[in-house]
């Protein structure tokens, strides 16, 4: 008797692939995926637990939240590329706009949630070695002799773009709007950057664990976190007099939630960020809450006052993203690698 080996072989192959597809099917209870930027790991770990409890209490349904982190630009392009994200919580509008342009998010997403879809804001500060040995107090000090600056790659990281713009804003004020001088400063600044990690967390790791660089240009929340987790005895935060108001927005990915039927829970997830509990969790993780009035004042004390420019001063992300960070934009023009 001839055993139908060929049939068996193809059948096994088919079964194997079906099995692997089956594992991607959702569990019975609802699961949502949050595609986030790099430094938010600790924030969402706590927030997701809180939201899951809240959702169970209010609707009796078990929700599992899965998160992925990475440089905001990279994450956005992964979503455009097909990653099944129910919500995105990224570092800046331009990245969500890119997803909207690809058709996965409605084009009028901005405004569907309060405060232009930003439940929390942050800013850019300097993290330096304890005692600030190189005495770096302002943006101009960063191009001093022998100073090494750590910042992520603006092509992939949202935080890096805020860093870039904060530096640009300082130079703008310092050189009275003389674009040639501003470019010269920024070019020089990036010559002092020995390594560009792909995300804010990567840069923190480079600065803190690998011991590379004299100053880390960091999200305020990331700087506080590094201080708390890794050594108040090892680092200091220096708040420059001028910085930029960084607004990391959140949005529902319409194409995905409609296909998966998760719109209700996904929207509730984002709205919960604005709730009392959500805002307090954000403040606890060093994000500036957009509704400070509901937050424990003790948590708010840590945020220093500083002079902040906003992205609107430069025409909003709609203009800034392509001009500065698009292919052939200002960053591409000035970046030629570190001095070797």
């Amino acid at each position, binding site marked *: 008797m001839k055993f139908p*080996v*060929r049939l068996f*072989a193809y059948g096994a192959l088919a079964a194997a692939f079906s099995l692997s597809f089956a594992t991607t099917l959702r569990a019975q209870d609802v699961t949502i995926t949050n595609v986030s930027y790099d430094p938010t790991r600790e924030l969402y770990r706590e927030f997701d637990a809180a939201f899951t409890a809240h959702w169970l209490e209010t609707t009796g349904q078990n929700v599992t939240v899965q998160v992925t982190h*990475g*440089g905001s*630009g*990279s994450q956005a*392009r992964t979503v455009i590329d097909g990653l099944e994200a129910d919500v995105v919580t990224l570092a800046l509008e331009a990245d969500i706009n890119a997803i909207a342009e690809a058709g996965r998010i409605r084009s009028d997403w901005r405004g569907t949630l309060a405060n232009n879809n930003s439940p929390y804001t942050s800013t850019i500060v300097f993290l330096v070695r304890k005692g600030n040995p190189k005495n770096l107090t302002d943006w101009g000090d960063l191009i001093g002799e022998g100073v090494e600056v750590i910042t992520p*790659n603006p*092509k*992939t990281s949202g935080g890096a773009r805020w860093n870039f713009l904060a530096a640009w804003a300082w130079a703008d004020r310092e050189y009275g709007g003389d674009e040639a001088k501003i470019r010269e400063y920024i070019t020089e600044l990036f010559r002092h950057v*020995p*390594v*560009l*990690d*792909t995300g804010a967390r990567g840069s923190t790791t*480079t600065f803190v*664990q*690998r*011991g*590379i660089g004299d100053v880390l240009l960091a999200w305020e929340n990331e700087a506080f976190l590094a201080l708390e987790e890794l050594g108040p005895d090892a680092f200091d935060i220096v708040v420059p007099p001028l910085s930029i108001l960084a607004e990391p927005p959140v949005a529902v990915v319409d194409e995905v939630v409609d296909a998966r039927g998760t719109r209700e829970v996904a929207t509730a997830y984002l709205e919960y960020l604005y709730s009392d509990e959500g805002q307090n969790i954000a403040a606890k993780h060093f994000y500036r809450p957009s509704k400070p009035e509901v937050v424990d004042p003790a948590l708010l004390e840590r945020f220093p006052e500083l002079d902040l420019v906003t992205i609107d001063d430069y025409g909003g992300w709609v203009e800034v993203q392509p001009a500065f960070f698009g292919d052939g934009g200002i960053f591409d023009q000035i970046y030629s*690698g*570190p001095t*070797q």
Partner: protein
Amino acid sequence: MAHITTGSPGWRWKQPSVIPGFGMTLGFTLVYFSLLVLIPLAALILRSAGLGLDGFLRYASDPRVLGSLRVSFVTALIAAGVNVVFGTLIAWVLVRYRFPGRRLFDAIVDLPFALPTAVAGIALTAIYAPNGSIGALLMPLGIRVAYTPLGIVVAMIFIGLPFVVRTIQPILEEVNKEVEEAAATLGANRFQIVWRVILPGLTPAILTGFALAFARAVGEYGSVIFIAGNIPFVSEIAPLLIVIRLEEFNYVGAAVIGTLMLGISFAMLLVINLIQAWSRKRFGYGQ
């Protein structure tokens, strides 16, 4: 092996055989291989070929790309060199001597084969970081291992060691003691016997081991990225640059570096095959 001859001789692609299943097994093999390996590799090459020669060379001659290849190459060369010296020694000791725990150490040589690269990576980093067990000892001497090219070399030594040892061991086991005795009767001292009689016979195995360890080290990712500093031009390896380009969604840039590395892999395979062919001719062994 049975041969069934038909009337006319002449060129045959395949010798006739009584054993059934050739079509099916070769068919399945080729289909599986093409679908899973050849076609994806072709996609890689096509992506870079789409640039045309000029475009390709432009991407390939980017200083950062060349820098990363240089870092990968140099560290892999050094690591493979170290592995050849110690690997030969270890093979010698394991084959020729008897001592307590020999079997255990023989088994441990294969650890880098079996241990996942990411695990090796974080373990090595923990050891050689400035506050690690070995790193702390070396810091006062001014030697920094973790986050420097030296760290990359250490990681590559780890993963390349079994290639050298396992290539040399079987050959060493076959060495005929009569040759050594003959040399001794002709007046050679022990050192001369080892250096001029035995080692030359091991040369193909040593070279093969070196090439295998080198090829593996050049492409290594998981064990290296944790301990390397990832500073461009200094401690950024080529596979990492591919990953960075992918995260920038610069698929073309990634494809170019990928094709270059593929070329290097092919070249290494060729070299290994040549060594083995030479070995067969000259020494009578090598499969």
